[in-house]
């Protein structure tokens, strides 16, 4: 079931961008981009991080004003003074991070931005709004209870509220920014159905993504952005993941290429035995998790965000106390709740939150490289630090890992995500670990950065390290891991060999469904 419109040329242009250029102090974010989308079309915007997708959608929604170029809306040249103008003109955006008021009901949130219809009246008439919301959700397959409060809803449901909000305001052009990032495969399929219904209605859907198969599945045409330029617009039906990837990065990449050659799997390096831990709110977030990771293998932990993966990682590395069960490294049991103990036992950790946990953002690259090794030789002698050694180490890391920066004294926050992750990787590997816990190590990175991280993870496993890879990206786990454990509501609900697992089965487990066995 490919895109509906196929390759036929667009008939009535809903929105066209002509030569849009937007410059920021250091970069040209958009460089004379031409783009158009027809009424009834699903048009995907594909590109790496930093390719200019976000800037372009901010221009479309009136948040930025272009330095050059024009926006043509339904044949009329338009200039937006503010986001409100764009909204009034029928352009709505569903952001990656939802703009919802969590103590309010669905209906209240939907009417929040409305200044034309019932939202303008002094008194709210909840019944009328609720009816309209119900009608819209039936028509577009967006099942959600209008009187429910936002905090009671799952992430997928919250996204539906965002879409309902746009539909309620009768948006003719909807921009969805990486909408599937937070969804299970089943939820994503439901979203694609909704997108098709919206398109059949004559609305324009601009679908921002960097997942190739989604773009293939849902879009009619694809515009690929690279380094602020629009490099091609192609019919989705004619494109292949390989050709799109090549356009996106400007060179051929291995897509889903799975390298099987691995070193032999060794002794258990990390054993979790009935681990329990509390979440930030004091209720159990990790429930009775048992897992064994052997040297030389990569074990993936899949699951939708918020099912205890982050807490599990923090418990293993000692940043969160164990309430029950045990963690053992190379057969030696840890007392838990002490990061220093975990570090000296040989646990390396790539935290989900790079800037703020993985590195101290205000400190130099050099300082961040010795963040864990400053305590002893050769970085310090007695109580004093040896700055010459720190510089040497930092220079070597910058060379070896190809960190793009002007020098080791640059503060860490100035590095891009990919370069920052290289610094973290370099530091973690320098401690001669036996096991590596990697929590969403590629989140927010561009394709090249993802490739780099993946190759380091593969390399680590081939040198005999045990790797625990926690990721919400099932594709990532399937392409890297030997085994996969699925977490749901704090517990491991299934463990499979990657060779025998199917995406459907894993998706079902992630959504809390039981699989056949």
């Amino acid at each position: 079931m490919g895109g509906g419109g196929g390759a036929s040329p667009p008939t009535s242009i809903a929105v066209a961008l002509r030569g849009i250029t937007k410059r920021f102090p250091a970069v040209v974010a958009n460089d004379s981009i031409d783009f158009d989308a027809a009424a009834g079309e699903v048009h995907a915007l594909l590109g790496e991080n930093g390719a200019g997708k976000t800037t372009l959608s901010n221009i479309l929604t009136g948040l930025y004003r272009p330095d050059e170029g024009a926006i043509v809306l339904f044949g009329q040249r338009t200039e937006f003074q503010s986001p409100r103008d764009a909204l009034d003109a029928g352009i709505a955006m569903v952001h990656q991070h939802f703009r919802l008021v969590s103590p309010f009901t669905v209906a209240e949130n939907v009417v929040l931005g409305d200044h034309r219809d019932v939202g303008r009246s002094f008194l709210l008439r909840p019944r009328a709004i609720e009816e309209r919301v119900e009608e819209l959700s039936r028509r577009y397959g967006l099942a959600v209870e209008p009187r429910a409060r936002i905090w009671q809803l799952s992430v997928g449901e919250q996204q539906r509220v965002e879409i309902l909000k746009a539909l309620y305001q009768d948006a003719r052009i909807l921009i969805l920014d990486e909408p599937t990032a937070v969804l299970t495969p089943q939820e994503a399929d439901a979203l694609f159905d909704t997108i098709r219904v919206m398109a059949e209605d004559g609305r324009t859907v601009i679908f921002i993504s960097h997942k190739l198969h989604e773009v293939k599945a849902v879009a009619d045409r694809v515009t690929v952005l690279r380094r602020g330029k629009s490099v091609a617009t192609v019919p989705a039906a004619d494109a292949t993941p390989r050709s799109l990837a090549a356009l996106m990065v400007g060179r051929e990449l291995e897509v889903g290429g799975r390298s099987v050659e691995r070193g032999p799997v060794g002794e258990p390096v990390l054993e979790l035995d009935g681990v329990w831990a509390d979440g930030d709110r004091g209720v159990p977030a990790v429930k009775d998790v048992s897992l064994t990771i052997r040297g030389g293998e990569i074990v993936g932990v899949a699951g939708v965000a918020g099912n205890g993966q982050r807490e599990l990682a923090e418990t293993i590395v000692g940043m969160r106390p164990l309430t029950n069960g045990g963690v053992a490294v190379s057969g030696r049991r840890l007392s838990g709740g002490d990061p220093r103990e975990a570090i000296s036992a040989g646990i390396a950790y790539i935290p989900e939150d790079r800037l703020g946990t993985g590195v101290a953002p205000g400190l130099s690259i050099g300082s961040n490289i010795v963040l864990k090794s400053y305590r002893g030789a050769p970085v310090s002698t007695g109580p004093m630090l040896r700055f010459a050694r720190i510089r040497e180490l930092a220079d070597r890391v910058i060379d070896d890992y190809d960190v793009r920066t002007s020098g080791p004294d640059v503060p860490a926050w100035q590095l891009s995500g990919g370069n920052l992750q290289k610094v973290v990787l370099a530091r973690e590997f320098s401690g001669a670990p036996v096991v590596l816990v990697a929590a969403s190590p590629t989140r927010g990175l561009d394709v090249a950065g993802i490739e780099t991280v993946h190759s380091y993870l593969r390399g680590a496993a081939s040198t005999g390290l045990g790797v625990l890879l926690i990721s919400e990206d099932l594709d990532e786990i399937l392409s890297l891991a030997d085994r996969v454990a699925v977490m749901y509501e704090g517990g491991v609900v299934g463990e499979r060999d990657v060779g025998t697992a199917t995406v459907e089965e894993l998706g079902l487990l992630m959504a809390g469904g039981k699989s056949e066995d």
Partner: protein
Amino acid sequence: MRIERRLRQPWWLAVVVPVVSIAGAFVLSGLVLLLTGYPPLRSFHRLFDAAFIANGALSDTVVAGTPLAFTGLAAAVAFRMNIFNIGGEGQLYAGAITGATVGLLMAGTPSPLVFAGMIAAGAAGGALLAAIPAVLRAFFSTNEIITSLMLNYVVALVMEYLIFDSQSYLRDTSSFQGKVFPQGKTLPAEATWSSWTIHGLVLPLGFLLAIVVAALMWVLYSRTRFGFEVQVIGDSARAGRYAGMRTRRKILAVMCLSGAIAGLGGASQTGDFRHQLDPRGLRQANYGYTGIVVAALARYNPFAVVLVALLLGGLTNAGFTLQGADFPAGLVGVIQGLILFCALGGELFVRYRVRFAW
């Protein structure tokens, strides 16, 4: 016009911005003077003369600046780790109480021993008081700004109780004066701290001690593992925990160090200048709170703290000397306020730059 974050902070900004800020403060206060009918240049001239140039003025400025150097260093030590010890005021009182007690107790002992005893007691008094908000912060996540601030009032009242409302050891109950109006017992001569005179400039022991503390703080914070940990935790406490640093211990250590330095200021007040526990005088002086301003102006750099303390101390000193019908009494306060305002405003230009679009 747009304001954007600087990617790089040129080294000269750290010098130029404070200088321009202070100049700006004087221009603004000059305007205030003009509006109120005083000749600005002459007023400033008299102010500088009374603060730094006139006979003995610089020595008085050192006297006024010494306690501010201690409280400024105390604040800077804690602020470097993003721990906001607002309790310098109370910790200085605590150091004054313990310092005076030891000074009285050690009567008859050789002077150097008495000095050492008072210095140790002052530091211990301040550190012990600071330990209360430190423990609350480290183990119960209580906001140290509130707890350390509130303790200032507690210690202030304890100090007043010792002199005005009780027959404590520290109160002078024998002399005629002391019977008429309550006051602290005068410390013995051997508890009077030494001072050295160089070309007419009197340098009290306390001031030299402050310079030593500043030097030690610089070494500690820029050359040692301890300082590295403080930097990391101050920048991101989570990164510190992630790296296996003992963040709780560090909070305790830094708070107690900060309290000890403020306590030294209290001991210096009794040993160098007041020679008795003087609750009213200490409370009026507001050394602890002014120390926070000093630390902020000095951008937490220990040597800059000493300089800024002398600058603000000089202004205070000049204000006292010149007070009278022909000199606007509020001027010194106005200038101090404007300096702070301009300096904090200047911070913006260190971190951000303003661009004019055309």
